């Protein structure tokens, strides 16, 4: 656990320490020290936190690889060792199943001549984490031009996908009501309702194809066109198919902007997906692989796009969790004169409010969503987020 000790409960400190693609070289010693100092360590809370923060697969890999379940004298120091093995293998199985399906879908999108960029999960798990057991993928996020939605829709429909939600019994995809469809189309101009297909297997309930048209929120006052990002996209191979991902500088921008948006949108707060540690880990790893040129382009573009406040938000809070991961001066470069927004939520919803507690406290507080003073207007399934 490098950097100053965070003022966190022991379970959260262990979480942050183990949620790293590259744990400390002395991770065994540090884990032993922490557990020795906290005999009443709550393992149930630790597993709950790791699950909520979507880092249980990554932690599982680190527990297994470093045999953290046992101390240097061979005594068990972490219970439920089997849990971590099952989570790691289960995540791997799930992601391999997703890669089969999404690889086929990518082939169909390519055959249709669609111009697209793959964002987030598949780009990160395949290209950055490079271990399908460490990062659970939710959906295939596809950045396209809005005018190309009919092409994607045709491919999705032919592939057996439908816009809708899984029925309570999980046996079919039921269409959304007109109110939900209208709300998304009128008010959420940066995304379309996702396309779903039942997976018919325990590790994949649903395959989800999520079209989006912009990296930015509709009311952020930032340029909405995906064209510059499509034009700069980097060719690669995902799931065995030729594909394109955001170029490295744009991946950093996307990670920062999404982190800020999701941390403050009411929709995400209500879904308990606003402050997940995994988003910060993603940004840490993206910064780690960035060259000096990538960072230079990132800085230039972030200034040109006007997304400096979001970049500052993301880097500022990432530095609190992983101080060594953010290059010196980078967060300060984007710091606006008024930083009151750092403790606000609801701004992108048009209803800015302030949190009563600080960042690290609310990040690991399971009840933070009950403290919000306003509610999201967005109808439809939360699980599609």
């Amino acid at each position, binding site marked *: 656990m490098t950097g100053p000790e965070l003022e966190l409960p022991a379970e959260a400190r262990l979480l942050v320490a183990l949620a790293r693609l590259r744990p400390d070289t002395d991770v065994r010693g540090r884990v032993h020290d922490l557990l020795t100092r906290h005999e009443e360590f709550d393992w149930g809370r630790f597993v709950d936190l790791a699950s909520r923060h979507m880092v249980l697969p990554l932690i599982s890999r680190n527990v297994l690889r470093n045999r953290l379940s046992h101390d240097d004298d061979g005594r068990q120091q972490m219970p439920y060792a089997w849990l971590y093995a099952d989570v790691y293998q289960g995540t791997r199985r799930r992601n391999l199943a997703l890669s089969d399906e999404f690889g086929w879908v990518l082939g169909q999108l390519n055959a249709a001549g669609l111009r697209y960029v793959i964002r987030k999960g598949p780009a990160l798990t395949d290209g950055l984490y490079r271990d399908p057991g460490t990062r659970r993928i939710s959906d295939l996020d596809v950045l396209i031009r809005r005018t190309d939605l009919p092409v994607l829709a045709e491919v999705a429909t032919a592939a057996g996908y439908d816009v809708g939600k899984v029925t309570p019994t999980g046996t079919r995809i039921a269409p959304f009501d007109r109110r939900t469809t*209208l709300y998304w189309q*009128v008010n959420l101009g940066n995304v379309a309702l996702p396309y779903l297909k039942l997976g018919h297997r325990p590790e994949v309930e649903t395959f989800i194809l999520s079209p989006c048209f912009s990296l930015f929120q509709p009311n952020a006052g930032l340029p909405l066109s995906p064209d510059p990002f499509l034009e700069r996209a980097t060719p690669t191979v995902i799931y065995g198919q030729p594909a394109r991902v955001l170029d490295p500088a744009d991946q950093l921008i996307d990670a920062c902007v999404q982190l800020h948006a999701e941390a403050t949108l009411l929709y995400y707060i209500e879904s308990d997906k606003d402050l997940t540690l995994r988003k910060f880990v993603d940004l840490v790893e993206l910064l780690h692989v960035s060259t000096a040129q990538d960072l230079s382009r990132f800085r230039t573009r972030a200034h040109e796009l006007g997304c400096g406040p979001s970049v500052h938000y993301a880097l500022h809070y990432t530095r609190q969790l992983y101080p060594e991961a953010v290059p010196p001066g980078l967060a300060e470069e984007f710091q606006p004169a008024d930083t009151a927004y750092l403790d606000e939520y609801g701004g992108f919803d048009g209803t800015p409010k302030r949190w009563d507690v600080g960042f690290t406290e609310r990040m690991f507080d399971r009840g933070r969503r009950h403290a919000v003073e306003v509610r999201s*207007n967005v109808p439809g399934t939360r699980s599609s987020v």
Partner: protein
Amino acid sequence: MPDSWPSAFEKIMRAHLPRLDPAAPLTATLRPADQGVDSLALVSLLLELEEEFDVPVPDDALLDLHSVDVGQLAALMGCAGNALGEAEVGR
């Protein structure tokens, strides 16, 4: 010449524009957003219009509806006012 609308259209519009004085005309250029109609209320308005006139708003028209005015809504429902003729969304 003041704009005139089918009575069903005007009734639905006024019901969703509580800030509009009942004696004030429902002009073609009046925008619901300027009358405090938020995102949720706009959806409710559209739903009611769609149901009344049995006309679904086309998908390609939905994006521009934040700044839509009365005349454009009427045109979408196929009941444009006399002063506007063929008003179009996004003009």
